[in-house]
């Protein structure tokens, strides 16, 4: 589903000394079926932004268009908006509450008013997506699972509503490297199989470079850049100034540039692209 944000602003504590412009005149478009990354440090407005996309927060000014629906317009059914735009918060495992894994995942479908059979189908489907075996986990208490498993239950709880857009706020935070990799692969698989539009809030620039087709950079409530990873990560100094790094490959080429070397590979981001650029550059040196 296409998302269009037009001149969106949000102000906290309006009219007091502690007035904060959490969002400041933000506009962008996210195409249906795309995979978009949102980067920016804590307090840059990322969380506020994603909460506007599924109607948890209402625009102070500006518009959020979901397909053809203006979600700020009167008469729009918020429950429907929230179902279509699934939002997985940071550390979602802390929101589990039901007695069994299956019941917790069924919470969303139940709130949608689906019958029991449909609820169970949704639960099975969602558990398969996040890689939890139904027979093994469905009737267990979510509180006795490991941290990584709890997180997958929580994500399944959102996926079970079959959203058209899935927003994940740092889904891999705190996971060990293997679980981190597995989490991103799972999201990527889900994206490809369902054609679901994905928004990924992340601090990991390597993940952003690898998976995202578009990147939004937030800073102090403003949308600083929006474009392909290649375009965005070309602004090295600016990103560094707001406390954000580069993907590993881009970082290496940047450091080499600083040392007066000029390996080509403009726009190289991943390890492989950087290695290729360095090899080409070394080859050139040796032939001339």
């Amino acid at each position, binding site marked *: 589903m296409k998302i269009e944000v037009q001149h969106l602003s949000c102000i906290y504590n309006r009219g007091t000394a502690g007035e904060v412009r959490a969002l400041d005149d933000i506009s962008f478009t996210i195409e249906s079926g795309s995979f978009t990354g949102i980067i920016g440090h804590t*307090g840059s407005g990322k969380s506020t932004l994603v909460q506007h996309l599924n109607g948890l927060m209402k625009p102070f000014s500006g518009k959020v268009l979901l397909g053809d629906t203006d979600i700020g317009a009167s008469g729009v059914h918020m429950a429907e908006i929230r179902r279509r735009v699934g939002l997985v918060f940071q550390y979602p495992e802390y929101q589990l509450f039901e007695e069994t894994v299956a019941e917790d995942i069924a919470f969303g479908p139940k709130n949608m008013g689906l019958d029991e059979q449909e609820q169970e189908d949704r639960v099975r489907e969602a558990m398969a997506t996040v890689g939890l075996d139904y027979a093994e986990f469905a009737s267990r208490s979510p509180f006795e699972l490991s941290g990584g498993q709890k997180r997958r239950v929580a994500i399944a709880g959102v996926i079970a509503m079959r959203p058209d857009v899935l927003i994940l706020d740092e889904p891999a935070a*705190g*996971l060990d490297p293997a*679980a981190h990799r597995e989490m991103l692969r799972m999201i990527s698989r889900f994206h490809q199989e369902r054609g679901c539009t994905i928004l990924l809030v992340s601090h990991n620039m390597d993940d952003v470079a690898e998976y995202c087709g578009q990147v939004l950079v937030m800073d102090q409530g403003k949308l600083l850049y929006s474009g392909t990873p290649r375009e965005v990560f070309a602004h090295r100094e600016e990103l560094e100034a707001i406390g954000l790094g580069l993907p590993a490959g881009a970082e290496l080429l940047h450091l*080499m540039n600083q040392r*007066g*070397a000029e390996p080509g590979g403009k726009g190289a981001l991943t390890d492989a692209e950087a290695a290729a650029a360095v090899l080409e550059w070394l080859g050139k040196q040796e032939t001339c």
Partner: protein
Amino acid sequence: MNTVIRAEGLSFVYGWEKDREHPVSEKVLDQVDLAIEEGQSIVILGENGSGKSTLARCLNALLCPTGGRVLVRGMDTAEEQNLYAIRSTVGIVFQNPDNQIVSSIVEEDVAFGPENLGIPTEEIRLRVDRALKDVGLYEMRGRSTYQLSGGQKQRIAIAGVLAMRPACMIFDESTAMLDPRGRKDVLNIMEQLRAEGMTTILITHFMEEAVRADRVLIMKKGKIIADEPPEKIFSREELVREAGLELPPAIRIRNLLRRNGVPVPDRILGMEALADWLCARKKDAGGGSHED
């Protein structure tokens, strides 16, 4: 060198106090032997549930071994009368910035440890000021802890431990919940403490944080399966993968280059070092081609 911490045959099982025959968990730590020398910087890696945090908590008497023993500067952690001497020698900073701040005012929180130790008021003042300056938050001493960012809260937690004047500091995934800026701040403080001679133990999932350590320990299923300098550890790709870990970014690129015939040596671990080495090689090659 002086040994700060020594673990001998250290084992730990949860729920052992209640029922020795039927402990609640499997062995979380299994016959761990470890000696940490004064001034060393150690990084502990391992997948979730490998026993890293339990090990950390055994090293400063927050948990008592169920088998073997732990000595901190010769003091046995199992003996009650050593408790406060041990905990002020080996300090620990935890993962969640919100859940380890005791007081609602910055300087009061930093003073919490020394207050518990019964340090005289004038001395507490000196220690609190020193510790806050060390973490760069002296100006914020009167502020409310609630308004601080995650990174600032972790720096307060570090200051709180520093004010106890420890010889060793454990960072138990203290960077895991921070954004890149907060992480960088905490790591910089850690480096600075290390330069001043502090023994540091960092538990982390970020591989790039391991490359500057003196020793890297890899844990799996309650055992230390490797204990070597980073250049050795990260040249054993197989071992790293088996432990559920990955290689740091610079080493991933280094290995790609190696596979294509560029002989980058093992000692190149960080991105800066790799860039330096490549540029130096270009100069050599450039110089060489001129002579031809």
